[in-house]
């Protein structure tokens, strides 16, 4: 090592000479080796521009040509998801979407899997808030047969009883697992606290009670109501010509009949009838090894004019080098990691900041979360702090668009929310223009910590005394009495 070091030292002179050729003068004033060279200005690229047509049956078809790799991805989106679950049947939209690939009028589950394997492709389906979707990905030469399979599963699923039971059991197993974990419980409870009994308040994957209630008829009815061409978008991206893509769409979806009935009105919270803000909810789970701490409040919807201010503000808080992790993990060692999310939806979605910590530190971490939200206003980021936080957003966005699947998902999301599809070509610029003052203003007007709720799931006796000194209105619910089916969060006495 010593030998290498001395040789390296000799070469410094050479390097400094070279430095004048390629590095701006102010940088060459110091040794170019000692510190990393600074970034160049961000480069811009042109992402392909989506084109679209609407079929006679109302199906909106969007095509994005990208020919560098012979792959095609096709995604059929239904413009409703978990938000239209009936109040007594959380999980219905997700189960419906999941069962699409488990049997149609002409193929059983195994035959669907085999047909997709023969093409060397993949087929997935599922639901989330605001949307349900089915997606195929194949080599471009196989897109014809792949579209036939996609149309078959979307249009003609059979919801066979044995497949329903199999999936119900899977969902129950997953839920049992989740309900043993403080982090997952806190996430479910936070949604109920922020949205009350309005849509977005329940778990999209269901509750033990709702999963037990969902019947084959409920699934078929959900499919009949929402899976219709005039409530759907088909996005096809990759290595094919737009005219061929439109022809495939017409061939496999053109004869999909639009029902005479009106499109069901989206059940999403037209106005947020959320529970009153400022709740402090403790779920007492005496066997919890760690406490999960959430700060949660309403955020913004996807079309909000403040969207880019919002995602940059969130990026200042979130990530390994974001403020939450700096304060909670790096400075104090109170958690393995702290994070925040600004989840934007058709209607106003949630903002949440969270961390898991040892039970004794639950109240302290709640204070730190509140403190960091407030500090966005009192101490907005400097340019030096803001630049890398914006780079994180731009880097994630750009890497996501490297793949056809990423490109199709991004465009689908814009289409779902009625946004200009060419926003993919303005994203980087939109993030770049956000200033520290924008972040400060957004935090002050849209993320006020005083309107936030606190949720802690853990061994309450370890943190309750301290929490009680900071908040007067603490609700404590033993985990055994937790009921996610209602904003009250408690099982009714008579049902016990």
């Amino acid at each position, binding site marked *: 090592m010593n030998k290498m070091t001395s040789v390296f030292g000799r070469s410094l002179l050479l390097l400094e000479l070279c430095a004048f050729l390629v590095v701006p003068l102010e940088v060459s004033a110091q040794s170019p080796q000692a510190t*990393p060279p600074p*970034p*160049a200005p961000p480069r*811009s690229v042109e992402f392909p521009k989506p084109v679209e047509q609407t079929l006679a049956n109302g199906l909106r078809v969007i095509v994005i040509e990208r020919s560098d790799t*012979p792959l095609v991805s096709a995604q059929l989106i239904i413009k409703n998801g978990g938000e239209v679950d009936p109040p007594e049947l959380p999980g219905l939209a997700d189960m419906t979407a999941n069962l699409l690939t488990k049997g149609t009028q002409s193929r059983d589950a195994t035959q669907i899997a085999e047909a997709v394997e023969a093409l060397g492709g993949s087929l997935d389906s599922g639901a989330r808030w605001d949307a349900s979707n089915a997606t195929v990905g194949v080599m471009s*030469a196989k897109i014809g047969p792949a579209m036939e399979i996609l149309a078959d599963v979307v249009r003609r699923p059979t919801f066979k009883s044995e497949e329903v039971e199999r999936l119900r059991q899977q969902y129950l197993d997953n839920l049992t697992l989740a309900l043993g974990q403080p982090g997952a419980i806190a996430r479910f409870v936070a949604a109920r606290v922020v949205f009350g009994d309005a849509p977005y308040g329940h778990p999209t994957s269901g509750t033990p009670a709702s999963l037990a209630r969902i019947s084959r008829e409920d699934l078929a009815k959900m499919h009949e109501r929402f899976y219709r061409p005039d409530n759907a978008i088909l996005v096809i991206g990759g290595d094919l010509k737009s005219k061929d893509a439109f022809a495939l769409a017409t061939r496999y979806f053109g004869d999909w009949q639009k029902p005479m009935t009106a499109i069901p009105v989206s059940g999403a919270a037209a106005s947020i009838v959320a529970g009153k803000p400022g709740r402090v909810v403790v779920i007492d789970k005496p066997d919890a090894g760690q406490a999960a701490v959430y700060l949660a409040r309403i955020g913004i919807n996807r079309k909000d004019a403040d969207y880019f201010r919002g995602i940059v503000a969130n990026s200042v808080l979130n990530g390994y080098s974001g403020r939450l992790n700096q304060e909670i993990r790096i400075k104090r060692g109170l958690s393995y990691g702290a994070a925040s999310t600004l989840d934007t939806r058709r209607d106003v979605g949630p903002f949440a900041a969270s961390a898991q910590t040892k039970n004794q530190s639950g109240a302290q971490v709640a204070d730190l979360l509140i403190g960091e939200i407030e500090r966005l206003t009192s101490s907005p980021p400097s340019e030096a702090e803001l630049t890398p936080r914006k*780079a994180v957003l731009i880097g994630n966005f750009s890497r996501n668009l490297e793949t056809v699947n990423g490109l199709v998902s991004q465009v689908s999301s814009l289409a779902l929310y009625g946004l200009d599809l060419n926003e993919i070509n303005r994203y980087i610029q939109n993030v770049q223009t956000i200033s520290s003052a924008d972040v400060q203003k957004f935090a002050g007007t849209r993320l006020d910590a005083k309107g936030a709720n606190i949720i802690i799931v853990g061994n309450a006796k370890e943190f309750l005394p301290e929490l009680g000194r900071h908040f007067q209105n603490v609700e404590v619910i033993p985990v055994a009495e937790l009921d996610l089916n209602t904003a009250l969060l408690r099982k009714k006495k008579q049902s016990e």
Partner: protein
Amino acid sequence: MPRNNLVRVTLIATLFLLLPSGLMSQTRMPQLRFTDRTLPNGLRILSAPDHSSPTVAIQVWYHVGSKDDPQNRSGFAHLFEHIMFKSTKNMKSEMMDRLTEDVGGFNNAFTADDVTVYFEVVPSNYLETLIWAEADRLSGLNVDDANFKSERDVVKEEYRQSVLAPPYGRFEYLLQQKSFLQHPYKRPTIGSIEDLDAASLKDVQDFHTTYYRPDNATLVVVGDFEPKQLDAWVDKYFGPIPRPDRALPRVQIKEPARSAETRVTEYGHNDLPAVGLTYLTPRQADPDSDALRVADAILSAGESSRLYHALVYEQQLAAEAGANAESREDASLFVLTAVLSEGKKPEDVERSLLAEVKKMQEAPVSATELEKAKNQIITDQLRQRETSNGKALALGEAAVLLGDPARVNTDLERLQRVTAADVQRVAKKYLTDANRLVLYYLPEAAKKVNNGSPDGDDLLERARRAGK
């Protein structure tokens, strides 16, 4: 402790997945156009501009892997890879994480039998920063004993997590260990706790001096950059690193051909027994690798594969069954494995695996199966090559492990030409009785019924009887 340790250890095995693949007649395959340049100090640079997204992938392939672990230091190449994330002359510990993750990128590294690869993906305006950083850690490490020991502890935890903790971790470890008699491939990449404990800071310095030199490195850059600017940065930061005048040591040992079946029984904390078969196959660059890859896909890719259909679905003998055409630079393995279903006997599972081998030798695979296998392999390859990082991996592998970067394109065409007769021919040639190792991996509980006889066959027989 770096947060991505977990990922690093899982990547040890991923090189097996990077086999070259082929071309469908009806699909136009993308050609990766690259520039191949070598600096006076021996550093090879392969670069391919691609402006479809403003990101860039940077990789440094060092032609040193676990087969080059020093004597009695198994696991050292992998331990060393971790040390490369500690401090260098100009970088603090874990600074590579900050230079990438904090600007919207990521970084990682992996160690395989033949190579050690470091990679980063960052927004393209950070390219110069990463070229500087990679040159800095090639130039020299600045690791103290405390740093070394703490990272060695991390690697020991990885050993426990990847070999000891998973129920079949040691099974996979043993499959490789028992499959090679002479070649250093018999030391699995993760090494052993005793050898890791014996390693010292001096070993680190010696290893860096011996193998981390520009003429043993290939820099691969793919993505959004201007070639002239890249050349200038590479010249500036890598150019001054001297080429040592010592010779580069290379493994010369050849693995001898197998002449008779070998049978091994081992015990672990698995609940269900596992059976593994390995066959010695040629080095990765051999033309037969393509047909073996196709045979692997026909046997094991998806629920309609032969092994899944026969052993899991029809006969219900196994909970899982798989095949893997593992490829290595000097000699490879074709591996078949199965984890048994409750109450089934290992010899029945072995018989079923062998029946599938025999089927492949006696009749050509159907046209449908052949096309499905090629579709699966090619689609996987195309997916990998969608990203800059994936393209760079394919290019680096062709250059370093296959000895010719142009194979990144030609191998795609070659795989397309594999016929049913080729698959049958390689099955007959390599999947023979004399070329087979059979490993039974039985639950420790089964051993307890034995009263201390060291004879493996006897143990096995008793275990079988106990299972009845």
